[in-house]
């Protein structure tokens, strides 16, 4: 890695291993503008906004594509550069649907931000493009090609992070567009609904399918009892939109806000995550006894399940038959609220607030429809809830805190870490390990099951058997792992897969954030675990009592699902 000193706008700036000049400039405290540069992805060099001028030669070059050299002297804001940047912006705006006021991305749009920053008030060129058709076909995301500026961030995240390659450029010159192969609708492709394209989109060209209107209609319908469950990852990210630090757990404020908004009952997905841990651990121990099939894959992430279904269906038998916590919650609610509905002749309307766009797809799956209605009526992402709270004008910091309702508001520390990569595996391990001491918990914590690496491997001793576990985040790495398992290079008993970087805290329904924010959110969940009253799923008194009451047959029928097979 190169080391040395650069001169940026006359100031000496040391560099040590930064991969490009752009990173050094940003380190020096200058927010150089970019569209196509996304630090988590490969360098593309298309937007030319990050150009800098060499003080000696007067040459201009894109700083994202330049390696820092010792003694290099550049300026970042010369008259020439400012003129170029304004021209680039003007041309981009000329071929962009500038309907900002009613765009879902307004306020979070990079194009809008930079056009404002550079004072582009007038566009001299008419938009000569034809009107492109919008794509409403996906449950998770919505594509409006009229707003695309061709930065290619979505193309690269889909290929490099998720290994899917659903979107790519097509055509050339003025006809260039980003689209799926053969200009198909997303629903006709192998899109897994992870939504990461929407998370990195610099404009409003790809946004999350907005179902806020449906939510309000249900909340305002007196015939409906609106019951909400909130996923673990939501509580440590939603605050970012209201001035709280990433990772700060504001669940109690969210519960309070939802009540003011008119929601009848607010519960915690953690409750169902405890059921998942117990059920999944049981299944795992059974597989250990039966000798397979291994690896057992976790089933909580709907994008991952969809990926196998579409690309590698032979592994569907390896997926745990446990429903995801969201769907387990729905099964419990259906069972428990049938009587309640009959008694007061209202219908229970179940909303799940998730960090995830793929959950919208999961809720729409045939397996989770009974008698023509979905088990979860509506899935809202964290950001949709942010918009709803903003709409009401509620100030979160002035609210009285309120904890989730009982009985389904109670969850263990093992449940809250479901929202971070490695959490599901850790919870299952806690349940399976015969040693129930504090020390055992500590050993698991530092075993390497936690962390940022895309693939982590850990080994535990469960009653004399050596158990090999892998934890994966990012679908591209799951592909890699499967290839190795298939080639006999690796063997695991249990593999946890989360499609998004960092696990659910990095879900596409969360506030926009880079790796650093995702890491803080993960820490927030671990902190919640550390201060939880009990840290093992089986210690949840409501869950254990309820499962005993339901009995094994009910659990078998209602907590399991068989993807891609008929049973």
């Amino acid at each position, binding site marked *: 890695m190169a080391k040395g000193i650069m001169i940026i706008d006359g100031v000496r700036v040391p560099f040590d291993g930064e991969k490009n000049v752009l990173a050094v400039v940003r380190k020096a405290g200058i927010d150089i503008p970019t569209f196509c540069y996304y630090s988590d992805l490969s360098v593309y060099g298309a937007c030319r906004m990050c150009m800098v001028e060499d003080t000696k030669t007067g040459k201009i070059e894109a700083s994202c594509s330049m390696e820092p050299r010792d003694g290099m002297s550049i300026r970042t804001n010369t008259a020439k550069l400012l003129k170029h940047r304004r021209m680039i912006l003007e041309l981009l705006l000329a071929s962009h649907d500038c309907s900002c006021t009613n765009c879902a991305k307004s306020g979070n749009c990079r194009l809008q931000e930079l056009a404002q920053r550079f004072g582009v008030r007038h566009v001299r060129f008419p938009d000569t493009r034809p009107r492109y058709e919008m794509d409403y076909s996906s449950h998770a995301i919505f594509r409006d090609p009229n707003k695309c500026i061709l930065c290619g961030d979505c193309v690269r995240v889909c*290929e490099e992070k998720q290994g*899917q*390659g*659903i*979107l*790519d*450029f*097509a*055509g*050339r010159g003025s006809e260039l567009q980003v*689209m*799926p*192969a*053969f200009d198909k609708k997303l629903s006709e492709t192998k899109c897994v609904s992870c939504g990461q394209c929407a998370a990195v989109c610099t404009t409003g060209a790809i946004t999350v399918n907005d179902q806020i209107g449906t939510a309000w209609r249900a909340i305002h319908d007196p015939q409906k009892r609106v019951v909400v469950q909130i996923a673990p990852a939501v509580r440590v990210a939603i605050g970012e939109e209201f001035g709280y630090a990433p990772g700060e757990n504001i669940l109690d404020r969210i519960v309070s806000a939802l009540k003011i908004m008119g929601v009848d009952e607010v519960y915690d997905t953690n409750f169902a995550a405890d059921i998942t841990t117990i059920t999944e651990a049981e299944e795992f121990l059974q597989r250990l006894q039966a000798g397979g099939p291994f690896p057992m894959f976790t089933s909580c992430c709907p994008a991952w399940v969809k990926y196998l279904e579409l690309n590698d269906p032979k592994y569907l038998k390896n997926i745990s038959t446990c429903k995801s916590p969201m769907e387990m919650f729905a099964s419990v609610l259906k069972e428990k609220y049938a009587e309640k509905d009959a008694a007061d002749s209202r219908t229970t309307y179940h909303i799940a607030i998730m960090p995830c766009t793929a959950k919208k797809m999961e809720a729409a799956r045939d397996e989770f429809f009974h008698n023509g209605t979905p088990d979860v009526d509506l899935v809202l992402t964290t950001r949709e809830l942010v918009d709803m709270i903003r709409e009401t004008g509620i100030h979160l910091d002035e609210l009285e805190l309120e904890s989730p309702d009982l009985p389904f508001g109670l969850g263990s520390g093992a449940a809250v870490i479901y929202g971070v990569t490695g959490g599901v595996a850790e919870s299952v391990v806690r349940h399976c390990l015969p040693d129930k001491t504090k020390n055992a918990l500590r050993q698991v914590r530092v075993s390497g099951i936690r962390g940022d690496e895309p693939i982590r491997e850990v080994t535990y001793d469960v009653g004399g058997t050596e158990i090999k576990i892998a934890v994966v985040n990012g679908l591209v790495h799951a592909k890699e792992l499967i290839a190795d398992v298939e080639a006999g290079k690796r063997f695991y008993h249990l593999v946890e897969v989360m499609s998004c970087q960092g696990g659910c805290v990095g879900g596409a329904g969360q506030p926009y954030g880079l790796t650093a924010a995702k890491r803080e959110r993960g820490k927030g969940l671990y902190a919640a675990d550390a201060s939880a009253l009990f840290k093992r799923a089986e210690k949840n008194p409501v869950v254990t009592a309820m499962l005993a009451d339901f009995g094994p047959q009910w659990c078998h029928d209602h907590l399991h699902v068989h993807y891609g097979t008929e049973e």
Partner: protein
Amino acid sequence: MSMNQRLARVSEIIDAHGAQPSQLIAILQDTQSAFNYLSQEDMTLIAQRLGISTAKVYSVATFYENFSLEPKGKHIIRVCDGTACHVRKSQPIYDAIHDYMHLTGKRKTDADGLFTLETVACLGACGLSPVLTIDGEVHAKMTPDSALALLDTIRKEEGLAK
């Protein structure tokens, strides 16, 4: 030729290039010369065999003017639009043929599948301009009328009424 036979042929072409992603363009070219266009099934198979995304193959196929994603007609007309031909009024010839074939939008092949209309940058026959080729045969000093007369003759030979 059935779809399976066609895909078997595409597979042979892929093998001939060692199933290397770096050979994508060569594979697309050979596939196109075998069937005169690239079908969605061809491209899907190529993507699968090379281990790249279908969107990527589509991206390359749509980038180059030379690749056709629709079946071409039996006879291929190329109107030269090089500088010399252009100056000597090749555009009205192109327009006349375009109308004759009832083409709309981006379509280059007529409804009967008889003709495909393309342009070519220069044939090096500037002394004979404006020129066009039909199935590789050069026709010199064309006018809109003489061009349409050629097409009429072919239609008659094919047993199709004007």
